[in-house]
């Protein structure tokens, strides 16, 4: 359990600096400048504060601007004057000011920026906390956050030195990378001559690998996220977990010693581990018996607190496990997983399709049904026309006609498409891919995105050996490869790509894979001289997921790190999972 790192594994860089930086900036903005004493959540309802001054800390979104404008205008109507301050995070957008102006409140409001883009959620995990990134870029084609990403990378390189080896794949990755490079060039000298702390940076777009993100998670941390939703590194465990009438907010990170030992484990091992742990704990408590007074004093002052802490954590996670088991060990869940595995491996497609149909007919869950449809589409290079129609029809009947818009979104993002007759498509495709040079690319993506992108999952899976051949049972207690995060059935594509590129220190020999990923022009390696890089730093790798990453991917790469003596650090626009992906694509009635 909780495999230790190899003794030569490099130290992680200190991210507390980022936290301090962000905190100090915010405190300065809130206290020094605006003397804030109470915080309210920005919701679509009137602010009840009677204060003379209102301060809004918001994402730069038009929706938020309209909300603020309506508040200001309501005050005006009521003849009330107060001061309004808007702090945009991480930056102000011209469009926002424009809306304030159009709503006639620009003069009443003063604006500020909080350039905060990197939140350390854990010792090895940085999040930009931009869940909207996924929909904005991959659905709407909105490139507004690319600048934010470049700025964040720039901040990292000023704090932790230059990155001697850079790899990337995906259009958004490429644009962000180029913008970042330009920033570095403009502010030449800042990072020059600094010793690199992190040897490699690997950037990838979420759409390079939708499949992994669409799978049900079975590693503890991922499962907790799927079941209870981890928000900003903490989770609200409801009464069913705490077995009391109150909810409990629990921080989930490496500080939680119990959690740290089970977070990367396949769920089937977790309960056994926890009960063993409980027995050990009991034994330690039991040592009290037969202690003399001095020993007892020692025990109470030194050990008891730690034991109690551990006790508390244990009971929380045991509660969570029970709750998960109630939901996930039922036959339904087993069959769901079985279907997913069948889709990944590409057998019994008809049976899986019927399963999905039944899932829809029984109205099991709109998000789950959608997820399975997408998984079927991507693994099969699109649905055959008959299924495409009938599944969609069934879905609309079950979950409401407004999802016609959802399907239009999914098609645009390439998540749910219709198989087109082979030859004609290939012709168009090759034409398109010739056109897809960087600058021309944008011009045609709109029209052809769903057409140009064939997922080619089956071929990629074969090339990269994503479905491990298993003789006998896969021992989930002693994982042998990254597939353990999906019960031994599938190696996450994203993680496999990272593994392969790191092994080669380039994309060499992966041309076919890159082509199948529709990224022929969009995969790059950028290596500088490594004379300043220590061998320790060269085993430290920053992986950047644009559009979100899942806990399963994090667990898989942590495993890979332990195997190879690397340490991985993660930077993501947000933590994601299948439900979040689907929700981002769903249209709900206004």
């Amino acid at each position: 359990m909780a495999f230790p790192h190899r003794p030569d594994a490099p130290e992680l860089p200190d991210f507390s600096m980022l936290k301090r930086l962000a905190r100090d900036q915010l405190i300065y903005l809130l206290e020094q400048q605006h003397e804030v004493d109470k915080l309210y959540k920005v919701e679509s309802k009137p602010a009840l504060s009677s204060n003379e001054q209102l301060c809004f800390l918001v994402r730069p979104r038009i929706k938020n601007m309209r909300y603020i404008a309506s508040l200001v205008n309501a005050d005006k109507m009521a003849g009330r004057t107060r001061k309004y301050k808007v702090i945009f995070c991480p930056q102000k957008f011209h469009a926002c000011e424009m809306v304030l102006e159009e709503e006639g409140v620009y003069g009443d409001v003063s604006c500020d920026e909080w350039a905060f883009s990197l939140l350390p959620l854990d010792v090895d995990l940085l999040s930009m906390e931009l869940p909207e990134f996924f929909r904005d870029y991959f659905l709407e084609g909105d490139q507004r956050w690319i600048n934010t990403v470049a700025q964040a990378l720039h901040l990292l390189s000023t704090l932790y030195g230059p990155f001697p080896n850079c790899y990337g794949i995906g259009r958004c990755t490429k644009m962000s990378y180029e913008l970042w490079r330009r920033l570095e060039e403009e502010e030449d000298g800042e990072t020059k001559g600094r010793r690199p702390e992190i040897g490699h940076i690997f950037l990838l777009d979420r759409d390079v690998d939708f499949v992994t993100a669409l799978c049900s998670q079975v590693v503890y941390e991922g499962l907790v996220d799927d079941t209870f939703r981890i928000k900003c590194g903490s989770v609200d465990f409801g009464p069913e977990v705490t077995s009391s009438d109150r909810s409990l907010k629990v921080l989930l990170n490496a500080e939680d010693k119990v959690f740290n030992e089970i977070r990367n484990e396949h769920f089937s091992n977790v309960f056994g581990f926890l009960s063993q742990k409980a027995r050990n704990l009991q034994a330690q408590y039991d040592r009290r018996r037969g202690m003399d007074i001095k020993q007892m004093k020692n025990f109470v002052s030194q050990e008891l607190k730690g034991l109690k802490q551990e006790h508390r954590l244990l009971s929380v996670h045991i509660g969570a496990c029970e709750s998960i088991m109630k939901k996930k060990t039922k036959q339904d869940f087993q069959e769901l997983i079985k279907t997913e595995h069948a889709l990944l491996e590409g057998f019994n497609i008809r049976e899986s399709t019927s399963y999905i149909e039944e899932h829809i007919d029984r109205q099991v869950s709109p998000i789950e049904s959608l997820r399975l449809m997408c998984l079927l589409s991507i693994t099969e290079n699109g649905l055959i026309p008959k299924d495409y129609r009938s599944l969609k029809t069934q879905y609309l009947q079950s979950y409401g006609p407004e999802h016609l818009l959802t399907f239009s979104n999914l098609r645009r993002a390439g998540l749910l498409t219709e198989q087109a007759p082979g030859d004609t498509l290939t012709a168009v495709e090759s034409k398109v891919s010739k056109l897809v040079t960087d600058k021309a690319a944008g011009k045609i993506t709109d029209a052809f995105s769903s057409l140009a992108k064939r997922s080619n999952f089956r071929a990629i899976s074969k090339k990269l050996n994503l479905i491990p051949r298993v003789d006998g049972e896969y021992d989930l207690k002693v994982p042998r490869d990254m597939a353990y995060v999906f019960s031994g059935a599938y190696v996450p594509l994203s993680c496999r790509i990272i593994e392969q590129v790191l092994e080669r220190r380039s994309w060499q020999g992966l041309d076919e894979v890159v082509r199948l990923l529709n990224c022929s022009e969009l995969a790059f390696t950028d290596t500088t001289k490594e004379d300043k890089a220590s061998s320790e730093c060269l085993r430290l790798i920053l992986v950047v997921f644009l559009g979100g990453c899942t806990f399963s991917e994090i667990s898989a790469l942590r495993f890979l790190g332990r195997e190879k003596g690397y340490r991985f650090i993660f930077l993501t626009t947000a933590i994601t999972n299948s439900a979040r992906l689907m929700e981002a694509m769903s249209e709900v009635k206004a």
Partner: protein
Amino acid sequence: MDCYTANWNPLGDSAFYRKYELYSMDWDLKEELRDCLVAAAPYGGPIALLRNPWRKEKATSIRPVLEIYSASGLPLASLLWKSGPVVSLGWSAEEELLCVQEDGVVLVYGLHGDFRRHFSMGNEVLQNRVLDARIFHTEFGSGLAILTGAHRFTLSANVGDLKLRRMPEVPGLQSAPSCWTTLCQDRVAHILLAVGPDLYLLDHAACSAVTLPGLALGVSSFLQMAVSFTYRHLALFTDTGYIWMGTSSLKEKLCEFNCNIRAPPKQMVWCSRPRSKERAVVVAWERRLMVVGDAPESIQYKQLTIQVLLDRLVLRRLYPLAIQICEYLRLPEVQGVSRILAHWACYKVQQKDVSDEDVARAINQKLGDTPGVSYSDIAARAYGCGRTELAIKLLEYEPRSGEQVPLLLKMKRSKLALSKAIESGDTDLVFTVLLHLKNELNRGDFFMTLRNQPMALSLYRQFCKHQELETLKDLYNQDDNHQELGSFHIRASYAAEERIEGRVAALQTAADAFYKAKNEFAAKATEDQMRLLRLQRRLEDELGGHFVDLSLHDTVTTLILGGHSKRAEQLARDFRIPDKRLWWLKLTALADLEDWEELEKFSKSKKSPIGYLPFVEICMKQHNKYEAKKYASRVGPEQKVKALLLVGDVAQAADVAIEHRNEAELSLVLSHCTGATDGATADKIQRARAQAQKK
């Protein structure tokens, strides 16, 4: 050895001085200095001379000449003075020559005699004329103080940011003060003036009488006063030949000296050598010079930084010398060479006799891609000189496309600005340009421009989606994007319309658009939705309750739960709900109602398309084992074991599994053998397994 000290003369008891010529002046003066207004800029800056014809009683008709020399007397400029009488000359910290006219108008010239601008010191000054003027330097810039004919002071602390301040009146002042100076205390400019034996300090609010600490008795008038360059020290010369030296705060006396000369000195100034702690006042009469020293002081000043030095060289257009100095001092490129080259380029673009191509090429050849050089700044300068084409040429050398945008917009090259903004990757910049374009172009042209720039288009669409829905529709219309138009109208059918007719109309428009987009599926689905919506409305009218916006499935379920089975059947037929769905739906609804009788009837209405296991499952979910068992017997052989286990009949499940000789089923049953009663069953299974292996 004594040759080193040979030309040193004693000064007091412990100090010596010597005199030697540093360099001789190169000028060839036509006028005597005494007839001229003279102003020398600080730090060895240029010297301005203006023969002062207005001082003489009879005004001559000859226009005077304004001459500017370098500190070593090299002529820099010479121009005929055509404006009014000048009272005073002085140099600003930026080496601009300020010529204060009698009427209070101040003309500003560069050190090459190029006219820069003019400003007035106000009406009061105009009316009462300028009697005297002082240019002074503070950390905020160069200030100007005027004494008018009405014996009032007007002051501006920074001529670069002109704010006139009229100082308060000095009570009982009938004639001009015998001497005055500006002081700078607590970051505010004051005026110290002497009237007979009295001293007054003027600030912008009040006039206060002040006294000097430790002043000797018997003073009836102050003839001269001098403030040190740093405004820390002050010296006054009295009619008794007595010199008082102290701090300019007037709080402390540093020293005093009686020189026994009662004649008013021509000039009195503070001086000090660089790095010297000794300060001294030099007093000059017609034929006598006197140096008066004070106590050592520990503060040093190094005001003239290397940057200022370079600025001054640049101002004198001595670009090569400046660059050599930078290289010699090994200054970083950005602070040194690049900056000087940028200045040179800005000068170059002003050379109107050279063609745009030549200027642009010359600049690019010299500058290349030197770091820290902003081509857009140089281009802005070119545009400022009215050379738009040159500006555009220069902008092409600017590597950061984002930097090109503001100037391109200013020059009304908005379309070019748009592509540069897109190149920069800065979406905010793109949006800024879009708003410019939107105002500049007519709608059609604006849309056309967007059409060719997908990145800008999607950005603008996002904006429209929230803020300008009608524009969004127009955008789709223009592109014949019927698919998106359809989606647009579907969205509208939810958001904008409350009435059913309105919503149906919006859906109809959507369906038409989908047909145009050849998306038959979406068109049909939309038509179905229209039908459903109308029907839901009718159901609400006839049956009450809530139907509108439910999915088809939920509509039928609601009908069954409300006991309207006939209506439900009808709806299922009308919308061709597949059998399987209908069975799931009815099964769930009837179980929810716990209408077991109806459920049984339904199960026997025909052969179930979903099998009978779901019946078992749903009954068990409702904890009705009795009903569940009824259906367990009807479950097909493949799922029989599962069904029997569900209803808890482990023994029979075992029998079926054994009969099937199915290993998976056997282990499934075995895993259910938990209770003590199941012992026999478990044994039975093990025996069957053993037998199967034997065979």
